[in-house]
């Protein structure tokens, strides 16, 4: 009973069943909004269909990639893989072994779909044939009375490497998940950041690692320069200086990497310096406000009892009485600000950099207009193991499927009074391709003999 169970658990049928079931779970994950990945959509859906969502929640289908069903399937998959590797290793060792037992009769031995015989020119003997086969990267044992040759003898090891790579990916993945810190931090030009946990955004809250520490960093944002051509963001250059004064340039695709952490640019905003003055020109309040206003978003800020609603136009123009932007380029950046207090709107005006608006006896000046950026901060270990897994998988699959094994069994014999090379050959995977290859190889060897003869 136990042996039967082990046999089934290590079978390819079981592997295929598990892969199909995992595939189905992934498809469910594509269709059903996932809590972790699509939080907002999920919450909206939960509000509109609480019964259905609760039902799917019960089976973990709204968190499908980490649901008990998926984890069980993965566990069974790796159990299956372990058993397969354990059972296959002796076979692999056996298949790469080379001994005199491999030398068989090329005429009568079974399992060789390719058979042929070639009349040999006088100058070509068994030793020379073996030498030419070795030149064609065959490992050959035996002599002209009977020999065995094999090309890419170690190819079966690639099977082990490819399947071992899954374990490396698993190990690297697990280490990265358990040591993972994820947080978002908004930093404006000129701001200094020392990696304090309290400075990470509260929404979404930072994910602390199960093992290890949060990123140990210290830097100042020197400058932020977005680059836009018409309506396409073509780049951003964020220069930051670390504690040692070294300047690093961060952009899209080029995060700031330090202490196993990556600071990935995620979002751009504008942080204008607004100063509110009374009728006498006395400054009442002034501050940089990080406003999330790029790409048509609206944001608000508060000074005293006043609530200011800001719309931002990167390339401002007043068209038919409406505020619009000609493009996404920062050619003529202007804020359109409306002011209200106690629910009553006082004024609305377009305020460019170094411009101002007046309302109810007050004056609001915009004295500076730097940018701020949101960094997605992630710290995780184990990535080198994970990448090694990817590399091993690639090497394994290329080695196994391109550098496959070819075997030949041969002998020099007299047939009807003529000296002939008798060959039997076989190859993994590609029968017709191997036939062409063997024909070409031995035609070449015999041709080489003819040249020697001359």
């Amino acid at each position, binding site marked *: 009973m136990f042996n039967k169970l082990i046999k089934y658990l290590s079978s*390819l049928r079981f*592997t*295929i069943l598990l*892969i*199909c079931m*995992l*595939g189905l779970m*992934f*498809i469910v*994950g*594509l*269709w059903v909004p*996932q809590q972790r*990945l*699509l939080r907002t*959509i999920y919450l909206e859906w939960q509000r509109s269909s609480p019964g259905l969502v609760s039902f799917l929640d019960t089976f973990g289908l709204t968190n499908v*990639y980490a649901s008990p069903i998926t984890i069980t399937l993965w566990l069974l998959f790796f159990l299956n893989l372990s058993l397969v590797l354990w059972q296959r290793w002796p076979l692999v060792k056996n298949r790469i072994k080379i001994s005199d037992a491999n030398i068989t009769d090329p005429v009568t031995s079974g399992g060789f779909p390719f058979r042929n015989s070639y009349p040999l020119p006088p100058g070509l003997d068994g030793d020379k044939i073996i030498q030419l086969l070795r030149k064609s990267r065959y490992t050959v044992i035996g002599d002209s009375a009977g020999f065995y040759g094999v090309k890419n003898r170690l190819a079966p090891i690639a099977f082990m490497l490819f399947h071992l790579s899954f374990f490396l990916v698993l190990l690297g*993945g697990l280490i*990265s998940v358990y040591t993972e810190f994820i947080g978002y931090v908004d930093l404006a030009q000129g701001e200094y950041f020392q990696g304090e946990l309290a400075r990470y955004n509260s929404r979404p809250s930072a994910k602390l690692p199960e093992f290890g520490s949060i990123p140990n960093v210290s830097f100042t944002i020197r400058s932020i320069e977005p*680059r836009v*051509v*018409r*309506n*396409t*963001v*073509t*780049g*951003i250059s964020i220069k930051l200086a670390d504690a040692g004064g070294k300047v690093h340039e961060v*952009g*899209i*695709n*080029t*995060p700031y990497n330090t202490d196993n952490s*990556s600071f*990935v640019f*995620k979002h751009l905003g504008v942080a204008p310096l607004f100063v509110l003055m009374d009728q006498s020109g006395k400054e009442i309040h002034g501050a940089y406000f990080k406003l999330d206003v790029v790409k048509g978003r609206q944001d608000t800020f508060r000074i005293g009892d006043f609530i200011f609603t800001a719309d931002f136009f990167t390339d401002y123009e007043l068209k038919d009485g409406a505020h619009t932007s000609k493009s996404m380029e920062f050619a003529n950046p202007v804020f359109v600000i409306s002011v209200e207090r106690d629910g009553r709107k006082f004024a609305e005006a377009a305020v460019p950099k170094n411009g101002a608006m007046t309302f109810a006896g007050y004056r609001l000046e915009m004295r500076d207009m730097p940018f701020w950026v949101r960094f*997605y901060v*992630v710290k995780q270990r184990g*990535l080198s193991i*994970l*990448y090694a897994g*990817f*590399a091993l*998988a*690639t090497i394994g*699959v*290329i080695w196994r*499927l*391109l550098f496959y094994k070819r075997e030949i069994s041969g002998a020099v014999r007299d047939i009807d009074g003529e000296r002939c090379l008798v060959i039997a050959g076989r190859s993994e*995977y*590609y*029968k*017709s*391709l191997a036939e062409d290859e063997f024909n070409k190889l031995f035609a070449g060897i015999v041709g080489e003999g003819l040249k020697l003869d001359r």
Partner: protein
Amino acid sequence: MAFWEMIFYLVSMIVYALAGGGFIYSFVFKNPRVVSKITMLVCFGFIAQTIAISARFNATGHLPWSGHYEYALMGGWFIIAGTLFIGWQNKQLQGLAVATVPLVLIMLGYGYMQNPSLTPMAASLKTIWLYIHVYFAWLSFGAYSLAMAAGVVFLLKQKSEARETPNPAYDRFPSLGRLDELIFRYVVFGFITDTIMISAGAIWAKDLWGSYWAWDPVETWSLISWLIYGITIHLRVTFGWREKRLAWLAVAALGSVIICFFGVNLVVNTSLHVFQVR
């Protein structure tokens, strides 16, 4: 679209339409002699498509690597390039175009209906990983398409040979045994390039999005198609699935790749992959 790009894009579509019709004619009306001439027509369409790509490159300063339109343009080019290359290497395989040319024609037609406007290279695409990731993606799609084409031809030829008077149009093709092996070879080539594509994508994603794997819909679907082709290889090598069963598998499995490239974004709009959204 740039002016010359539009002209040559349309020319390539018209030529592929004529060639597709010609291939179907040669099979239905059992006239194998026209295949070589139609292949020349495909060459002409390929040149027109290459000029369209060059015109777009000239206008934008970058190769067409992103968005549904550019994927159709560049992906179709890879598939036709593969078809012509193997037809040049082995004349018996010229007829594989009977399946790949209509596929590319549909892709180009679909691409034309998407957003073909000229745009500068988005910042997220300015990395060496784009070329590695997308190049191997197209190589794998091209190889899987050829596996499908070989599968279609295998099934047609097998059906024809079962008749009392086989269609001579299939005589030009390799034997069923060789076609069967070809299907497997294209699947293997596609699987290798697919593996490199996924690995390169994961490394790129780490720099771009901060996470090497985020269960993005396109990521997930590419994993599904990789698993399907992995199963196909195992079924062939271990269970000895050959001929008809392998041919049907190669035809059906291509569906998963088409969904990955073109279908996912029709169903969900949450993918970070810029097939459609800039």
